[in-house]
């Protein structure tokens, strides 16, 4: 049984009487421990797909099974619980709370799990240790570089031991060197057995994952680059920009 099973999922918006199919009859399985990228130009529906997979949004049609739970008809509260326990998010703009320090930011998901303070602190520190950020625990996000902020955000995504991590353009706001380091961190996590979904418009970044799903106009065109299956290729980022697909 796959970790995620999407069957005939559509997301339809109505804009001024016009029907817009952001996702059109998408079916997809993601297995446990997979490192997968969802690639597509802006407006292709990749963000919608990620939102539905990440329990931030509900599909108009179709079924989704996440870790054995059917979630297409889940209540907002059940979706919140799924996001809290089974899903971690990493965003392009880091989305750390500026008023909290790094440790408090990482503790945030556990607050909503009702984990007592002492355990929260211990686990948050462990998660920061894992991304090599333990020495910045008391810093505010504004006192950190972009790469450090993204590491903190990754620690936050991992701290509740989610079944699956979604990274939405995680390197989009970083310089190439830092972006590479962050991608290496994801690869490391993948070798540790994490299920990671990388959402990007950049084929170069998508190239790090063994499995790539291309989205175009709300439909899937799956490609698998077998040469990357070993995950040993040196990643090159910041080369010539990929051809823009309108």
């Amino acid at each position: 049984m796959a970790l995620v099973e999407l069957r005939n999922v559509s997301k339809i918006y109505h804009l001024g009487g016009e029907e817009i199919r952001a996702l059109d009859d998408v079916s997809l399985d993601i297995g446990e421990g997979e490192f997968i990228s969802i690639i597509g130009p802006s407006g292709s529906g990749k963000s919608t797909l990620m939102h539905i997979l990440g329990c931030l949004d509900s599909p108009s049609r179709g079924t989704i099974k996440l870790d054995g739970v059917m979630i297409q008809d889940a209540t907002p509260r059940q979706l919140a619980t799924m996001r809290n326990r089974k899903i971690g998010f990493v965003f392009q703009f880091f989305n750390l709370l500026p008023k909290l320090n790094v440790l408090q930011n990482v503790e945030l998901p556990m607050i909503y799990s009702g984990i007592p303070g002492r355990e929260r602190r211990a686990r948050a520190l462990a998660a920061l240790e894992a991304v090599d950020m333990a020495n910045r625990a008391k810093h505010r996000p504004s006192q950190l570089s972009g790469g450090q902020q993204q590491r903190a955000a990754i620690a936050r995504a991992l701290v509740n031991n989610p079944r699956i991590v979604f990274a939405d353009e995680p390197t989009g706001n970083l310089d190439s060197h830092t972006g590479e380091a962050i991608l290496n961190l994801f690869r490391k996590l993948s070798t540790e057995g994490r299920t990671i979904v990388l959402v990007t418009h950049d084929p170069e970044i998508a190239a790090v994952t063994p499995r790539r799903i291309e989205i175009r106009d709300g439909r899937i065109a799956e490609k698998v680059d077998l040469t990357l299956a070993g995950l040993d290729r040196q990643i090159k980022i910041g080369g010539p920009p990929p051809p823009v697909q309108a």
Partner: protein
Amino acid sequence: MKSDRPHAPPEVLRHSSAQFNTTILAGLREIWAHKFRSLLTMLGIILGVSSLVAMSALVSGMEKGAKEALIAIGGLQKVRVEPQEVPIEQRHLSDQAVGITINDVYALEQSAPLVTRLSPEMRLFATATANGKTFRPWVCSGVWPVALEMSEHVIAHGRMFNEIDDELARNVCVIGTATRDELWGSPERVGHEIIPLGETVYLNGVPFTIIGMFEHYESEQDRRARELARLQAERGVAPPVATGPDRGGRGSSGMRRPGGFAFRLKNSTIYIPLNTMWMKFRTGAAMPASGSSFGGRGGGSSRTVTTASAGGTAATITGDPRLSTLELKIASVEQLPEALQQIRNVLMSTHRGIEDWTFRTQEDWAEQIATFIRNARLSGGLIAGISLLVGGIGIMNIMLASISERVREIGIRKSVGAATSDIFIQILAESVVIAVLGGVVGLASSFGLVQLLGKLSPTDNEPIVTVTALAVAFAFSVLVGVLAGIFPAIKASRLNPIQALRYE
């Protein structure tokens, strides 16, 4: 972090106390982050709470003062029978009206069992002269010895005149402290207490021997102020001049506060035996009173009685036999209506159906006091309530501004697993924390406000801060916080997480 799951999150109950504390802490942090803004927001609640407490304290003080005064004049069981003009439909009978006489007293003693005590009173507009000074007491009355208990008087020095003094119509009197203060000097002025027992005082020129003096009547508050001043004086601390003890009842000294009115009147009393009053001031040519022409007829029976007790000396003298008032005490307040009916029946028969008298019960006054207190409480509460409402609107306003600043934060919180209810509680908690802090500060500042009002207010009833008032005011501030937070909290919690995350 390893992929195996030794620390898989246990299914902990959501909204545990740990989370609740964190929510409150987050609220406090948010308030601390915007100190000035939060302070301004709280100001509405602070003012509302403190004015609620202060208003309640003022009214409680007034209520206590009124109750003290009520007890000082003899309580609710007292009924006064006073003369009144003959009603218009009986005007043609007015020359047959007898007025209230001693005859009524004996008739009531005989026929009105619900009346436990009777005290006839004959008033005189007297000028007291002694020690080279003169004084016009508020009350100079000829009474029976029973008047002592009737009017809640207490003899501090000497004795009250007794039945023998009354029967023999002796020239003795019992004075209140105000008379002493005016004629011989108050303890504050002369430094020691003068007890003028055995001295002679001239009432309208007639010499009387002072055989007793009442104690000094004053409100609880005045008594305590005086006590404090005395203690300070004993410790060698000079009492502050401005706040020095101002004993009610003295004619000329210092500013007078109207709240001690009842006590001041009571201090300004001179009692002489009823028969003495009758013999020395009402008979003969001494007081050619207006009603004397028919007094002979109407007061015939009473005069017989009086004559008997006075030893036959007044038998041939025409005078005014009418009493100024007749004070009655009934067994209990519950029986007041029945007692009044009995009194009415008796007096109707002795007055031959002519209503030249009327009742005055303390209940009317007590009711007036209660109405006044209720109105004061209502209007004060309304004003304080409106100010709390305005404070609540301020909180709501600032919460709405705050959540529109924090759309992204709400999106982030939702993305890491905050449910709608978590956001709702967070915003509500912030609002309640502002209101509660405002409430606490308001309670603290209310004590200062009460002090200030106590100094400024024209009543000498010290405001009383009650625990109930504090609790009610605090509860209202919490309620306002909850009500003001609900709408912003609903608005925040309903934000779509995807749009909230995209919000710049």
